[in-house]
């Protein structure tokens, strides 16, 4: 019996030792990142290519933008990814954090209404009222007015939102705040807004899942997730009065409507001015966030430069409805300039 006991313990110890040894042997550079689920499909597509180009193993974990910022602030990863820019509190919690825009896409307003047409028009006011809970049925006159001839059912609307800290929530509420003053004062722009109606789900994929399981639901999720999961999404009216679907050209139109890039790279391209007649109004840049002083500085510089240039290639980005960052040259220039601030420890 004693023998059996010691053999067992020895075996467990041996397995663990072997495991540790095997882990320690790996010598290639691993770059860890965490954050946005919005950009996750793009990073996943980049990973093999970056491995091929530089021999780096990029390990990205889609835990949500909020968690990504927390992780880079606490130095748990080499980079964070967020669709929301750092807020004042976050910037002061991580004074040497810099944000670099590295991808450009849009948030779709996705819905699941049995029998509804593939083309539904919505405007900002209506969307905000739906998420405020003041419009709560698909046959509401406000919705019918935007969809003449469409036969929308008598069905309760279930708004679906992100339950975790999310840059997509930020982008969406940024848009709603710009179109509806009530929204701005009552809810505001946030990665974790206090939604007054609906249901929450975790991650972009959770929102897509909940929408597809819930009749009468409407939610916001990046375009790629909606397309992948065959969820319909609405055409949203922009300032010029046009109802537009999120597509590469519409996103590019939103990006080119702005000519300045602030020093901290914080870009807001929601609800662009009338002059951008073909712009989709809920477009957004998404950021990579790194420490200026990083143990992996050279690797990060190479990897991010690759992402800003080759990574924007259509075999990666366009397939997932990400527009090229070079759409707005100023943003690309600013991003490349910021990149130089990353220094070794």
């Amino acid at each position, binding site marked *: 019996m004693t023998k059996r006991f010691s053999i067992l313990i020895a075996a467990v110890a041996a397995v663990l030792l072997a495991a540790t040894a095997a882990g320690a042997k790996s010598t290639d550079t691993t770059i860890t990142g965490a954050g946005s689920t919005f950009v996750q499909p793009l990073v996943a597509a980049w990973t093999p290519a970056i491995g091929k180009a530089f021999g780096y193993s990029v390990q990205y974990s889609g835990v949500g933008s909020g968690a990504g910022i927390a992780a880079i602030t606490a130095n748990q990863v080499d980079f964070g990814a967020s669709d929301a820019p750092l807020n004042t509190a976050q910037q002061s919690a991580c004074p040497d954090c810099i944000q670099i825009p590295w991808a450009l896409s849009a948030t779709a307003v996705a819905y699941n209404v049995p029998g509804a047409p593939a083309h539904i028009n919505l405007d900002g006011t209506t969307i905000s009222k739906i998420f405020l809970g003041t419009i709560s049925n698909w046959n509401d006159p406000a919705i019918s007015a935007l969809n003449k001839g469409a036969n929308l059912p008598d069905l309760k609307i279930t708004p679906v939102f992100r339950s975790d800290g999310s840059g997509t929530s930020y982008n969406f509420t940024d848009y709603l705040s710009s179109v509806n003053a009530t929204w701005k004062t009552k809810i505001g722009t946030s990665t974790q807004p206090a939604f007054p109606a609906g249901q929450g789900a975790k991650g972009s*994929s959770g929102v897509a899942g909940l929408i597809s399981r819930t009749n009468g639901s409407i939610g916001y999720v990046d375009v790629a997730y909606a397309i992948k999961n065959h969820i319909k999404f609405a055409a949203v009216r922009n300032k010029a009065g046009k109802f537009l679907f999120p597509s590469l050209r519409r996103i590019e139109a939103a990006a080119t409507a702005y000519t300045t890039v602030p020093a901290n790279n914080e870009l807001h391209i929601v609800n662009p001015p009338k002059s951008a007649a073909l712009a989709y109004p809920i477009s957004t840049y998404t950021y990579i966030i790194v420490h200026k002083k990083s143990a992996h500085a050279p690797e990060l510089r190479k990897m991010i430069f690759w992402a800003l240039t080759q990574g924007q290639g259509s075999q990666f980005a366009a397939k997932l409805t990400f527009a090229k960052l070079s759409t707005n040259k100023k943003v690309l220039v600013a991003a490349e300039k910021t990149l130089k601030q990353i220094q070794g420890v």
Partner: protein
Amino acid sequence: MEPGAISLRASGRGRRRLLVNRVAEGTAVLAAVLAIVVLAIVIWSVGSRGIGAINLDFFVKGPSSDFFGGDGGIAPALVGSLLLVGVATLIALPTGVLTAIFVSEFASVSIGRQIRLWLDVLNGFPSIVIGIFVFTLAVKTKVPVLGIGHHQSAVAGGFALAVIMLPLVARSTMEVLRLVPNHLREASYALGVSKWQTVLRVVLPTSFGGILTGTTLAVARAAGETAPLLFTCAIAGQIVDWNPTHSVQSIPLTIYLDSESADPALHQQAWAAAFVLILFVLVTSLTARLLLERSRKKLGLQR
């Protein structure tokens, strides 16, 4: 109430009393059947939906990097769970067994009762709070408590799981140590054997089966825990990683994340992972129970 009060009065209502008795008995049977039916439905749902996705690739491949499809596997999660549970066992098993030895061999009755109470309290703590505890202790603060710096890792996650396992291992070991007949210890002392030799050569070997059982049950519990890993070992890459100082994937978290998605392929992966997990948990718990029976019989004792 006096036990015999009713039965003595009962005479004319015999038929009704029998009927009530029948109904009550029927309800009890029904309740037991209900619980077993629920178990059967759960296992059937998981099995029938998961088994289709189980093949070799499922066990040896990582998640697919192609967003729009491509079959992926759960190899990183399997390895990660193995690491996590390994670390947890390595911490909880010795601590738990030593605690139990202290209580059964050294401590006074009142101190033993105290320690048992604390362990029960620990066992009652919500696992998500234990996750937050380990996060604030080992991940967030810059105190390298576990010698691994301040980031998520299999060690941190394993430590959280160990906190959950500790009371289970300690309590079950206490139970078996209590079953070791005192005359064994006395016989050993009578032979002039010291206490530590007696514990190591008589008490522990005798209760080996019971300790193994308790540990196995605790391992089964830890393997399925999700909440403690959310903040301690969730930021993980997509590849097989054997390094316990890295954050790793795990089966419960994989199920949790896949479960909410809209992608049928991910659903199936979740069901398949759940099937693997449930199989592991049920087989280990069943084996543990059989072992327990055997070791009890061996000791010639019935509870």
